[in-house]
């Protein structure tokens, strides 16, 4: 069983970090994982994307053209990648920045106002954690408490922003559980 998640947005939205935390938690859970970023000039303010592969066996090709999941944080990301998602796959749409959904009917589309939730939680910069939390809650790929521990570990050197991120995480989970 292999799951492939593409996280996509613009540079600075914390896409790479969300993806890394997902991979890290899955690794701690005993899965094989690979985290494959886009890199180079496109990182500087343009579209950033990152793929996380989670598998119960050794990962062959980590280059995934057709992921099972897409987390689209802005409109260009949705437009660019939604048609790549495997039939039966799941797409998370950040409705704070994306006013549309895809017209594909063979995938599940989950609409989450990620930025608004983050602002409500205290800071728009926690959007990536909201997205991660909502995604994790719906996809059930990793244990949520384990994922929270991974976030705390990641921010260990910046302890004062941990409460904000925990709040953002909980809000993300709540929204996913109650609204979608």
């Amino acid at each position: 069983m292999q799951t492939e998640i593409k996280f996509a947005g613009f540079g600075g939205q914390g896409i790479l970090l969300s993806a890394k935390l997902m991979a890290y938690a899955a690794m701690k859970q005993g899965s094989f994982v690979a985290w494959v970023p886009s890199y180079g000039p496109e990182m500087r303010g343009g579209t950033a994307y990152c793929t996380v592969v989670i598998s119960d066996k050794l990962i062959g090709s980590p280059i995934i053209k057709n992921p099972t999941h897409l987390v689209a944080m802005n409109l260009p990301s949705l437009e660019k990648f939604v048609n790549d998602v495997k039939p039966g796959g799941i797409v998370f749409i950040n409705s704070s920045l994306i006013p549309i959904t895809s017209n594909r009917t063979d995938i599940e589309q989950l609409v989450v106002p990620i930025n608004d939730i983050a602002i409500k939680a205290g800071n728009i910069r926690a959007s990536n954690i909201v997205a991660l939390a909502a995604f994790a809650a719906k996809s059930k790929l990793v244990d949520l408490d384990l994922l929270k521990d991974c976030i705390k570990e990641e921010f260990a050197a910046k302890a004062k922003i941990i409460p904000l991120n925990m709040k953002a995480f909980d809000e993300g989970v709540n929204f996913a559980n109650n609204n979608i």
Partner: protein
Amino acid sequence: MAKVLMKGNEAIAEAAIRAGCVNYFAYPITPQSEVAEYLVKRLPEEGGVFLQGESEVAVGYMIFGAAAAGERVMTTSSSPGISLMSESISYIAAANCPAVFVNIVRGGPGLGGILPSQGDYFQATKGGGHGDYHLLVLAPDGVQEAVEMTMQAFTLAEKYRGPVMILGDGLIGQMMEPVEFPDNLKTEPSNKDDWATNGMDTRKSKKRNLVKSLFLNPTELNNNNLALKAKYDQMKREEIQFEAYNTDGDYKVLITSFGTMSRVCRTAIDLLKEEGIEVAMLRPKTVFPFPEKAVFDAATKESCKAVISIEMNMGQMVEDVERCVKGQRPVTFYGECGGDIPSPEKIIEIIKAMI
């Protein structure tokens, strides 16, 4: 030790430290600059040396100087940078100094691109600089192997007193995978009294040492080349590493592939197997010395009708494969080298067309 999730570039950096190398000189180039960014923080903690040189040309000679002084030393770069270092690598090989070079290969020629490529196979395995020399070249297929090979590289460099190269690519450098650092791959530094230029006072003999590559006398130069050749022959006897994948069954096609590309091939082979199509792969882990006999044996298995080398270049390792198969089976090639990595589906399509 528990697994940690690390970028290939950072894992290579940490592996060097775990292998006892605390001296690093480098020049920034995408896609490997994370190695320097990691080591600039880590090496001071280890009491080591970090220096960003003014060019890859200079860095090559910083490596040469440090290696000749008997210290474990490493640099990392990417294709255009390795071209600039190739001059020094020739000198280092000629002067019999141990040093580790990591090439996180990007597309070429020229400035090429910054995405993964295997376009430096010829440069890595056939010399690269001037004169008759080789590096021992290890080609990892992922972050864990990059760690293990980096650690082994220091031991091999000292065993053969010559340059060893890790031939990675942009994907291996940029990707994160879980890794462990096997402590048993760390070795004690070898005794260098016979050759290192670290001051006459350091050795009992009080004899001075000389590190050089100039031999104006033709007999002496020939002898130095014969001594180098003897090392390469010994490598061929003692250091060949390869992976044979799905070679037990009656396969019709043998794939040869290395590094990142071989992972995609492995996925394709698994998918073909589900359809009842048996395909095997021979993956050189040392691309110099090349697993000549293993390739020949795998290619000439009775069931095997054809060999295809699949690479992220325009056909480089395939020349070694053809050489080893000795005309016993048809050898074909598929490759891409713009930076996109051929997909398992593409490989499946190509294999199906062969049978």
